[in-house]
């Protein structure tokens, strides 16, 4: 089934109710949403195999806590797009604001433009792929999952990072506390290539990336590390 929903004449509440009701027959429904005009909390809490295409810019928390569904935002996204996503695939064709993919547990967030600060904060297992640059404090306290940054990273990348893997192609303004460069083995190159191919990124070679992760020196509190905090 293919549907259209015009937010110029509808409401966020009505749209989300409609989205929550779709896909019951276990088949992939498609819906095109027009005139989002920066509205918040669009397509949140989806649990079924829908394909949602939003034509325009969205506000806060678009595709928040997504499960299974594919959400494409044909524009820019406000803060915390795909926050706490559990599974599924969220694509933003433009740029994204702060906290993109915050605390996401699973699925993939693909940003075709740049991401602002704190992208992937407290990441818990999802893959975040940024074709452009990311702002400061990205991957702060990131726990697990993977982040691919095809452009440059801002200050204090990966501060207090746990087990998340960071692949960065461009320059890094600075690394955060306990975040260090790690060796890029064949295994990591293969893993990165798979991620790039799955995101349809053809212009970047895995060999051009460096890998970063945790030095694991702050995993258990030691008073001698107090200067690091």
């Amino acid at each position: 089934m293919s549907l259209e929903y015009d937010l110029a004449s509808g409401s966020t509440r009505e749209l989300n109710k409609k989205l929550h009701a779709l896909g019951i027959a276990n088949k992939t429904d498609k819906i095109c949403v027009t005139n989002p005009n920066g509205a918040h909390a669009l397509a949140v809490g989806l649990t079924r195999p829908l394909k949602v295409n939003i034509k325009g810019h969205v506000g806060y928390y678009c595709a928040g806590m997504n499960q299974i569904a594919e959400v494409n935002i044909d524009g820019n996204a406000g803060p915390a797009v795909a926050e706490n996503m559990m599974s599924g695939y969220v694509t933003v064709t433009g740029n994204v604001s702060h906290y993109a993919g915050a605390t996401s547990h699973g699925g993939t967030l693909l940003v075709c433009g740049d991401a602002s600060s704190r992208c992937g904060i407290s990441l818990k297992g999802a893959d975040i792929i940024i074709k452009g640059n990311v702002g400061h404090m990205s991957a702060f306290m990131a726990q697990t999952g993977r982040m691919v940054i095809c452009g440059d990273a801002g200050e204090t990348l990966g501060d207090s990072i746990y087990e998340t893997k960071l692949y960065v192609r461009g320059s890094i303004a600075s690394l955060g506390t306990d975040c260090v460069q790690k060796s890029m083995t064949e295994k990591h190159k293969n893993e990165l290539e798979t991620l790039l191919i799955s995101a349809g990124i053809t212009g970047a070679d895995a060999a051009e990336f460096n890998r970063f992760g945790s030095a694991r020196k702050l995993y258990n509190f030691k008073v001698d590390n107090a200067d690091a905090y």
Partner: protein
Amino acid sequence: MPTKKNGDSQINLHELQSRLKESATYPRQVIAEIQRAAETGIYDIRGWGAKRSVPNFDDLLFLGASMSRYPLEGYREKCTTSVTLGDRFASKPIELKIPITIAGMSFGALSGSAKEALGRGATIAGTSTTTGDGGMTPEEREHSELLVYQLLPSRYGMNPDDLRKADAIEIVVGQGAKPGGGGMLLGQKISERVAGMRDLPKGIDQRSACRHPDWTGPDDLAIKIQELREITNWEKPIYIKIGAARPYYDTALAIKAGADVVVLDGMQGGTAATQDVFIEHVGIPTLPALRQAVEALQELDMHRKVQLIVSGGIRSGADVAKALAMGADAVSIGVAALIALGDNSPAFEKEYNSLGTSAGFYDGWHEGRDPTGISTQDEELAARFDPVMGGRRLANYLNVLALETQTLARANGKSHVHNLEPEDLVALTIEASAMAGVPLAGTDWIPGKK
């Protein structure tokens, strides 16, 4: 006369004690803390809430009925205790039989069976219990008729399926024991199950963030609440929990952000693990915090429309009744609930002694060696705790709190505990009078009011 050998000389202890002069600035506990800090190089971390003496509900008294106020007959005339929470925006508000809820405490800080007992006890008594950092366990959901799901800064275990299973959602902004502080679950309590629920390796310290990862300030919070309501079809009441820092403004901002319920936690409120210096020196006591929160609700014409739950040092039905008289809709208990389950029981005195403490003083909840099996992830210790018995004990305690509250309400002529009012109260001290906004006993005087 008691004597003690000291080398070759006999010292008369009684005489010695009467001659020794202890410093008010450096009493023995302060000296011991300086010595401990010098030895270890790290601040003291502990559980429990503030242990210092602060003005509290004991400093208030009910006036009782008199010529102009008619009492209700005990055991005969009805005095109801029910409360509805969250009917401002939620389509499915919570109905409690008693105005006493169980505060958020995490699986991780507490054993699975202790969490189960909290659910069992609350359910028998007709009230709600609350998850904590680390998410919702199936046992907790199964044994809790009414379960409030906390959304915390760490988002450990945050899952939209559990969000939909909850009866209400509590956005935790702060905690009375540590307003402005995060938390740390030490590695020794991180079992495989706890680690799995929090997406971190086993055995490492787990830092709980002090700020939410995806919003900053009340304007953002209003949008965050919209997202949560959209995900849960506008069914669940949304609580906002604040530590008692600036309760007048924080309550007003929580109302503006769209809360159905404000949960206010005073500095006596408990914690599983925080620095002693933080617990004792940040935040304000429950008494003035409650008055300021009620003032904010009244000024915005939201009193009884947005419900107020107050916690931090609620121990008896007298505390419950006084909190309600000052304007709270319900109270919440944490430390008292753990004590009801069996925490600090004299039955474990020998084991407390082996940990360097004693029943009544044990606050090392962060260490995971709790002999009662309540604040531990050690399977052997946790197996000592019987969740059915623990639930029964908690239900008994909650029933006593409710009965005591009714007794005091009837004595003041109230047919519902919510009919208690500030006019029923007086204060024993000038400090409590100023903080609670009720007159000093025997006067019409409230310091700071004309």
